[in-house]
């Protein structure tokens, strides 16, 4: 029964998820900015912290929201608070989930439209060393039932050997190889905290 429930995205689950995501970002703020320093502008931790703070405030303002309003509030907070490239990307992801969630609440389907949104917004493909390299393989794990922290870590780690072709890191070309992508890392936290919040396949 508990398992059954967790298969669907609910307002409760989403709120819990965002609380845990906030804590994780808060804890790793310096680390995310550190990852963003050699291949970016060193602000990803600060950007994400501003974003999740905005999410917390945005959700607190809602009175008995439905899932759609919840996801929309998250999207709006990320879009308006992050400031960096990750803002419109994460924002679009949640916006697409909001658009879809009346039709289905299956995480797998919602994450699929979210990924499509990210790809459309940023134009990145798999292998470009961006958050897409976490989102794309993780969305796939839902179909074969392998969604797990293991797989998330693997996906994040996979960006290390990639050459950046999108975002600021792409200016460094092959010199970006050997560094983890900061947006992949924060996406890793997003999926890990989804598990911690009780969201599994």
């Amino acid at each position, binding site marked *: 029964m508990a398992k059954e429930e967790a298969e669907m995205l609910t307002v409760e689950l989403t709120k819990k998820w965002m609380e845990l995501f906030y804590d994780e970002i808060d804890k790793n703020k310096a680390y995310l900015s550190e990852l963003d320093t050699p291949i970016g502008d060193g602000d990803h931790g600060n950007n994400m912290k501003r974003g999740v703070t905005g999410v917390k405030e945005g959700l607190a303002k809602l009175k008995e929201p439905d899932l759609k309003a919840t996801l929309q509030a998250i999207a709006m907070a990320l879009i*308006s608070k*992050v*400031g*960096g490239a990750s*803002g*419109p*990307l994460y924002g*679009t992801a949640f916006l697409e989930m909001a658009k879809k969630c009346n039709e289905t609440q299956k995480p797998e389907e919602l994450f699929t439209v979210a990924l499509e949104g990210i790809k459309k*917004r940023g134009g990145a493909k798999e292998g470009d060393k961006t958050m897409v390299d976490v989102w794309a393989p993780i969305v796939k794990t839902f179909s074969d039932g392998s969604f797990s922290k293991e797989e998330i870590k693997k996906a994040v780690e996979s960006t290390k050997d990639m050459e950046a072709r999108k975002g600021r890191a792409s200016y460094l070309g092959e010199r970006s190889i050997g560094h983890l992508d900061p947006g992949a890392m924060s996406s890793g936290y997003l999926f890990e905290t989804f598990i911690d919040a009780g969201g599994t396949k």
Partner: protein
Amino acid sequence: MTKKIGIVIVSHVPEVAAGIPRLLEQVAADVSITFAGGTDDNDIGTSAAKISTAFTENKADEIAAFYDLGSSKMNLELAVEMTDKKVHIYDAALIEGAYTAATLLQADVALKDVEEQLAPLKIK
């Protein structure tokens, strides 16, 4: 007297966004030029909300938009989805592209001819 097509400048840096119109206004007195620079807190970054405001404040209903780095394009696109105005986003060098467009729009050059002159300035 205001031209039919306006210009919107988007930059990560508030001063840069505010400064570029000063260069453009010299050659385009009748083109409405508005700008969005920095995050909502005026840090380095961009803000879809500020860009939306720049669209609204622009006197024209059709807009030629220019941006600095790729990430501002994403916020620009988000803002485009939220406006009723017709917005053309150009992947041209920000200052040089906007200057070219300003000069030509002031001279009542048709948009397709402006775009032809922007084509060699496309660098992103």
